[in-house]
C-alpha cells in the first residue's frame, strides 16, 4: 500500500516555498506559478536565499581562537585527561574572548613601544657613558649576572618594560622585570601591580613564539611557561628572596596559580593560588 501524494498547499507562501524546494510536480508547479502572487513570492524567496548565502567572512584570527578553545574543551572532556588537571587548559568564556583579543593587541603594541623606548634609552646611555669604558664594562658584567634586564624605574610602573639579553640562563626571551619581593604576598602584589601592562593570553595566542621550542632548556623559564599548568595570563621577571625568578600566572579551570621559577636552578620556589 502506498501513501497517497499530499495535496499541494493552498497558502501562497507555502506554495511558493514548495515550488522553490521542488516539492511539487512540474505540472502543479507550473499551474501554481500562473498566480502572479505566487510567482512574485517565488522570486522573492530566491532573492532572499541569494542574500542569505552572501555570508560575511569570519574575522581574522577567529578560526584560531575558536579552535584553540574547542581543543581545550576536547582535552578536558577526554576521560584519560581529567584525572590529571595539569594537562588541562581552560576554555575562556565567550564574554572574555573579545577582551582577551584586545588585550593581546594591546600587549603587542606595548611590546613594540617598549622596544622603541629601550632603543632610545640605550643609545642615550651609550653616548653619555662612551668616555667611561671601565664603567660600561662593569655595567655589562652586572647585567649578565641577572636573569633579566632591570628597567630603570620600572617598579614605579611609569616606564615601559625593558628587554632582557637573549643569552640569559634558561630563558630564551625577555620578560618584564616587576621588582623584588621577600614574601609570597609581596610577589603577588608585584604581579597585581604589573598585570595591566603585561596581561596577555599567551597560551591562546598561536602567533606567540614558544621560547621552550626556541631553545630554552627549562620550560618554566619560557615565555609561555608550562602549558600543562594552564594558560599563561602573566609572565614577568622578579627577584625573590635574593634569587632571580621568572614568574608565571597560569589560569586553569577558572582559577589562577602564581608560579615563580628560579632561573638558576629551574626549580619552582613559589607555587600558590593567585586571586587577582
Amino acid at each position, binding site marked *: 500500500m502506498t501513501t497517497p501524494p499530499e495535496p499541494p498547499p493552498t497558502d501562497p507562501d507555502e506554495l511558493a516555498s514548495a515550488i522553490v524546494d521542488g516539492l511539487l510536480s512540474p505540472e502543479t508547479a507550473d499551474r501554481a506559478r500562473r498566480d502572479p502572487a505566487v510567482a512574485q513570492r517565488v522570486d*522573492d524567496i530566491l532573492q*532572499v*536565499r541569494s542574500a542569505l548565502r552572501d*555570508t560575511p567572512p569570519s574575522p581574522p584570527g577567529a*578560526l584560531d581562537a575558536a579552535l584553540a578553545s*574547542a581543543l581545550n*574543551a576536547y*582535552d*578536558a572532556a577526554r576521560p584519560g585527561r581529567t584525572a590529571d588537571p595539569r594537562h588541562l587548559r581552560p576554555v575562556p568564556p565567550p564574554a572574555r*574572548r573579545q577582551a582577551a583579543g584586545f588585550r593581546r593587541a594591546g600587549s603587542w603594541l606595548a611590546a613594540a613601544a617598549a622596544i622603541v623606548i629601550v632603543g632610545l634609552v640605550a643609545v642615550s646611555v651609550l653616548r653619555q657613558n662612551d668616555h667611561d669604558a671601565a664603567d660600561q664594562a662593569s655595567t655589562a658584567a652586572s647585567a649578565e649576572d641577572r636573569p633579566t634586564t632591570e628597567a630603570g624605574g620600572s617598579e614605579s610602573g611609569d616606564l615601559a618594560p625593558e628587554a632582557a639579553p637573549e643569552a640569559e640562563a634558561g630563558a630564551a626571551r625577555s620578560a618584564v622585570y616587576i621588582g623584588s619581593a621577600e614574601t609570597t604576598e609581596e610577589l603577588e602584589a608585584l604581579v597585581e601591580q604589573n598585570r595591566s601592562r603585561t596581561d596577555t593570553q599567551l597560551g591562546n595566542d598561536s602567533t606567540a613564539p614558544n621560547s621552550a621550542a626556541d631553545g630554552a632548556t627549562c620550560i618554566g623559564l619560557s615565555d609561555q611557561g608550562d602549558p600543562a599548568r594552564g594558560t599563561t595570563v602573566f609572565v614577568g621577571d622578579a627577584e625573590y628572596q635574593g634569587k632571580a625568578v621568572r614568574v608565571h600566572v597560569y589560569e586553569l579551570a577558572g582559577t589562577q596559580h602564581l608560579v615563580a621559577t628560579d632561573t638558576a636552578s629551574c626549580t619552582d620556589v613559589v607555587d600558590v593560588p593567585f586571586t587577582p
Partner: protein
Amino acid sequence: MVQFTDDQRLIGSAVAGDRTAVDTLLRRHYDRIWGLCRRLAGNDADAQDATQEALIAIARGLHRFDGRATFTTWSYRVATNACLDELRRRARRPIPSATDELVLVDPTPLPDQITERLDIDAALAQVPEEFRVAVILRDLCDIEYADIGEVLNLPPGTVRSRIARGRAHLARHLGNPQPSTDRPTP
C-alpha cells in the same frame, strides 16, 4: 562521499584521542558553522562567540556521535543548539548591535554589499527564532527537510511550514509586503 569517509576516519581518530584529527575535522567544517552562527547571530561579534561555543560543543560531544546521521547533520544540530544558547545568554546583556554602531558612528553611505548584509541581518532579526532557524538551515546550509526535522526535532510538516513562514517574513521585511494568510504554525 570522500568527505564523508574522511570525516568518519577523523572522528574515529578523534575519539581515540588524536588531537590533530579534531583540529582537522573542525577546520574542515568551520566555515559552515561560522555561516550558520553568523546568520543566527546577525553580527560578527556575537557570531564569533557563538561559533566558538558551537565548536566547543562539537569537540566535547564527539564521543557521542553514533554515525546514524552524517557528521554534517549532527554537527549542525549541536552547533544550532550551542549558537542559540549562547545568543540567548548574550541577549540578556545589553550590547549595541553592529547596525546601531554603523548608523550612529558613520552616517556616510555604505557600500551596496554591506547595506545588503545589514538589510538581511535586520530582516532576519525581525523573524521569529523558530522560523529563522528553519530558513537558515534550509537556504544557507542546504539541509534537506528530513534532516532539518532531525536537527530541530520537528515533524516534516512543521519544518515545511516554518520554512515557508520564515521565507515570507523575510520577503516582507526586505521590501515585498505581499498579503499572506498568517496562520498559527503547528
